[in-house]
């Protein structure tokens, strides 16, 4: 009888620890969405990106604007475009739909070419080419 109760108790403990662990993982993954994600990180990258309808693009800089509110994505992009050479391609990664909408108009204003807006899971990548 005692063994039977023990095994039930062990099963409850095991099950609750699994549930607790699952909840902890879920909560931490949820908080990972925001805990101090450094917005507006610009990194020097040299990579080739295959864009449908555009072919291969040679990207020289990438701006990470995940989680950033306007006008940070726009201001950072302008700053980075000021640092790269004519004709070079910059990638801007954003998850702010309002900012994404404004990028073609921004490119027009600053004399760049808006090459593509590529939608990925949970974000957009905008590719801009600095004017020659």
């Amino acid at each position, binding site marked *: 009888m005692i063994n039977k109760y023990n095994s039930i108790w062990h099963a409850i403990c095991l099950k609750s620890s699994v549930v607790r662990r699952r909840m902890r993982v879920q909560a931490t993954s*949820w*908080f990972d*969405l*925001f*805990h*101090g*994600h*450094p*917005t*507006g990180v610009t990194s020097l990258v040299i990579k080739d990106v295959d*864009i*449908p*309808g*555009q072919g291969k693009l040679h990207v020289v800089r990438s701006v990470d604007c995940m*989680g*950033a*509110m*306007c*006008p*940070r994505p*726009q*201001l*950072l992009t*302008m700053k980075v475009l000021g640092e790269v050479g004519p004709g070079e391609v910059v990638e801007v990664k954003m*998850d702010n*739909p*309002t900012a*994404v*909408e*404004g990028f*073609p*108009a*921004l*490119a*027009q*204003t*600053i*004399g760049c*070419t*808006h*090459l*593509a*807006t*590529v*939608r*990925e*899971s*949970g974000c957009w990548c905008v590719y801009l080419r600095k004017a020659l």
Partner: protein
Amino acid sequence: MNVATATTASGPHWLLRKSSLQATSVFLLVVLCSLLALAKDTRFVYMLVYVWFGLAYGMLLQYGRFCMASAVRDLFAVKVPRMAVGMMIAVALYAVVAAIVTLAGFSTFHPNAMGWHIVIGAAIFGFGIVFTGGCASGSLYKAGEGNMNSMLVILAISFSQAIVVSASGWWDSLVPQSWIAAAAAQDMPAELTITQGWFDIFTAGYIWNLKGTTTAEIFDMAGTATGIVLLNTMLTAILPVIIILVALYVFYYRKGHLRRTGKANPTLRDEIAGMWAMFTSSKNTAIAGIGLGILAGLHMYVTGALREHYDIFNFGELLVAMGYTSGLSIQDTVFDPGYWYITTQEAQWGGWVMQKLGIDSMDSIFFGLDNGLPNPLLNAPGFMSIGIILGASVMALARREFKWKLPNWESAFFAIVGGTLMGIGARLAMGCNIGAFFATVTNGDPSGWVFLFGMTIGAYIGVKAFTWWMDWSDSRKTSECGL
């Protein structure tokens, strides 16, 4: 410009996607709640009008990524007129529909008092919106996209307004003695204690002595078709819109457009083509502008018609008739603008929560005399704001753009400080960019242009401050990395 838009995500048919099903669920939830409200009392249809127009506003705002904060901010931050153009399109269309509604006798509009408070309040509001990343409506629809930063902004707007309108003590030293004397001379019930509380003194001693009129009223033509169409619509709304659009084209768009099209000596035809290109540079925004303008006018018509149907002047009368007497002002009224409005109902949310926490503010003019502090479940314009959040959620889910986004410490700080400034500014100016600008200029009240002027000054200073902050924080990070 060679634009390519592509997606790397693929999956089942869009109707069967999880996000589409969630969007449908949110929509059906609103339908179900509406039916339950009607089953309880058909007179709740008055409140449901706010809900459904809010839902439609939210969907359109999200569809066009219609951010009125960016309309003024982007002119200085990045020199892009896209959103300013969208906003002007919405103003023009709202003005046309508002004229029809006024001619039909269903207008619910009341002009704002004209004075320096509008410029000061609007400037504080304009400064705040640069740091929050959205105006009051923008924050609502962005909250509907899952942006918790915007939810913080809404909280900050709600509580800052509630505190501002009910604060007394040392705050009272902020107002001049002449206002206290003017407030004391007003014949008001003692329970309002209008000589205590700086906002009460500001309202009774300053605002009530100012005049708020439409252009038609200035020329004694308020009730005439000529006054409504020519003075209120054409002169107060359409003409300034045309001037602003031409200015936006000349100062922000023309140079780039002519360079792109290679026209060295443009003809009038080229200039008109350039203007058209400016209008259509963002189709989603232009479509949202058209939709919002028409809807905002229709909203006023439907509410006006319902008031006529129930023979009421204010939703408070309907609430009393339905047996809900709690939270009404001493005039048995509640906040019920009858058109698109944002900030006052948010102040009521904050005031209601504070009341539940034991901080009663019904002795203030703002709540006690004018707007009341109804239960949020009976707050009709409050449901419009909730409708905007839900409408934006439906649209964002349907377009797979919904994403829970939690702020980092910096953006949370900006949301709270910026939202607080927006709340203070909105109360000083007697409304935000919707209630004090969008709804006013379209109904012939020129005070809205004063608000836009103040908001533009605030946004300009805000952009300078934000740019300085970005440069300073970047240089600090660089020096830390260097160490």
